């Protein structure tokens, strides 16, 4: 169905064409793009947002695009990362790197909890159960006012400077902030690419393509699903932690149903099951939101319309369609 996914077999073919070459060096190409990206954007803060949501969509795509499970509850993972990273700084005064580690870890734990309940159901139930559980997480954070600030959100996550190995970076400077976030995103590109190229990555796609055959081949389908859900949660937790540092507050809306829906839209707009597609989707979504809201407050109408057109006519998404066209 989706043959734009990476194939390990590509490395064994004798003559490379440029397409396979690009595929082999996808991390490098994506990283180069990320490094020059802020200079083609209207303003840097938007570029930082696109990076963060691109990472969020990347993590979501591991589950939706590569494993084929549609989750409508990823806001819970993104939001848990953001809140716990923020709480680590605001309530415990931890340094930024420890806070990010706590954000990622807590998202992994949350993904384990939600995942082990949700994968008990199959097929279409999965979307409904993840959405309901994410709603539950929303209420829990909403009511823990002492820790999360409840309706007002968690305020006062002030990270002014990034100190690393004796180097001192001014985190207030937008471009510095961009490259700090970008270094995490490039790291995530590398880790994701490694996961997908590993034998485990092949099993993930085998489960998507034919569950019965994967099971008959001796792979543990349930464990693969849970593991992928948890890994996806790790990426989303990292994105959430970076969002907390970037925004310096965590609004309660981060756990809202719309944050879950947004990432579904991004992944599908860009092209699910492609390496770089979710990033493209996040960029298109946020640029659309920014441009349309200059003209009308009802930007969701335009975004919803673009999404519906995409589902009807371009199910492979923007990046997926481009890849299909240019593939030699």
């Amino acid at each position, binding site marked *: 169905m989706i043959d734009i996914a990476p194939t390990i077999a590509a490395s064994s073919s004798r003559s490379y064409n440029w397409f396979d070459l690009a595929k082999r060096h996808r991390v490098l190409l994506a990283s180069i793009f990320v490094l020059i990206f802020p200079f083609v954007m209207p303003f840097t803060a938007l570029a930082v947002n696109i990076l963060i949501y691109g990472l969020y969509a990347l993590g979501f795509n591991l589950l939706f695009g590569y494993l084929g499970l549609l989750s409508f509850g990823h806001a819970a993972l993104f939001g848990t990362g953001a809140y716990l990273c923020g709480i680590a700084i605001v309530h415990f005064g931890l340094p930024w790197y420890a806070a990010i580690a706590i954000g990622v870890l807590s998202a992994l734990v949350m993904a384990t909890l939600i995942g082990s309940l949700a994968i008990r159901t199959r097929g279409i139930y999965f979307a409904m159960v993840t*959405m*309901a559980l994410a709603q539950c997480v929303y209420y829990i954070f909403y009511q823990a006012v002492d820790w999360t600030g409840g309706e007002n959100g968690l305020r006062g996550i002030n990270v002014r400077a990034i100190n690393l190995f004796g180097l001192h970076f001014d985190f207030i400077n937008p471009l510095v902030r961009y490259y700090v976030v970008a270094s995490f995103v490039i790291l995530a590109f590398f880790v994701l690419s490694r996961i997908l190229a590993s034998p485990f990555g092949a099993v993930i796609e085998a489960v998507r393509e034919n569950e019965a055959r994967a099971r008959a081949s001796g792979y543990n389908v349930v464990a693969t699903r849970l593991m992928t859900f948890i890994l996806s949660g790790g990426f989303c937790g990292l994105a959430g932690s970076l969002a907390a540092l970037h925004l310096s507050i965590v609004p309660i809306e981060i756990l809202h149903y719309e944050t879950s*829906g947004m990432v*579904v839209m991004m992944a599908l707009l860009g092209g699910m099951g492609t390496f770089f597609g979710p990033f493209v989707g996040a960029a298109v979504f946020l640029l659309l939101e920014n441009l349309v809201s200059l003209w009308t407050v009802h930007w969701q109408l335009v975004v919803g319309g673009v999404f519906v057109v995409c589902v009807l006519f371009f199910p492979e998404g923007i990046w997926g369609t481009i890849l299909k066209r240019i593939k030699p």
Partner: protein
Amino acid sequence: MSGLSFDLIALQLFTGLALGAIYVLFAIGLSLIFGMLTVVNFAHGAFYMVGAYAGLFLVSMGGNFWICLVGVPLLVGTFGMIVERFLVRPLYGRGIDYPLLLTFGLSYIMIELIRIAFGTSGYPFDTPELLQGAVDIGVGYFPLYRLFVIGATAVVLIGLWLFLERTSFGLVIRAGARDPQIVRVLGVDVSRVWLIVFGIGTAIAGFAGLLAAPLQGVIPEMGATILAEAFVVTVVGGMGSIGGAVLAGLLVGVVVSMSSLFAPEMAKVSIFALMAIVLLIRPQGFFGRAGLMS
């Protein structure tokens, strides 16, 4: 007298049943559409919201609540049929996720259109004069309107049951749910059946929105919350099972009202705990058939 007398608990039980009645109506439409079309309608909450606004619109045009009871399901159901015919139908046979994604995107458009037409802030919705006040139901005074909600739900359920079980068209619908291919071979236009089922399901959602309007007011986002709660109902009851939707809907309503009596801070979370328990013990729900959804 102690704070938690038997009468208070009994009254709270009735409040839960009235709340559950809304869940039942909402979930039954969802379940009907899924059972027949295998489409999870993520826009169901938006249809529910449109139902409430359609009621508001009819009242502002000089209609009254009783006209709305007939007019709203007709309007919303017609709209639902248009959506099925032109947006959902092209996606049949393209994988189970696509209609879900489409209806999800559609819900954004519907909510935004309502915001453009009616503004972003909410409206109150007056309880019809005839149904104001409270009546003595033996254990204490109970709002008449909530009693009416329970009664109206019962009427819809009985009507739906008679339609599905006692009419020849209902027979076709049930056959289509079991094996659409055989039904097609027998010369029935299945796509027309699906069109009507989608229309009925969304009409009931609009009706539920109208019934809920006097209880909680009307805002553009009213559909999103109940959608998540209705998913709990369908998971607990078993997707595609109407009996399951009824039982689980009432159960969820009672759990919400009881937990808001005994542990108010747990009220919102309690139904999700219920769902977690059901998932652990019986993943396919009370009445769900195992393996149906694979």
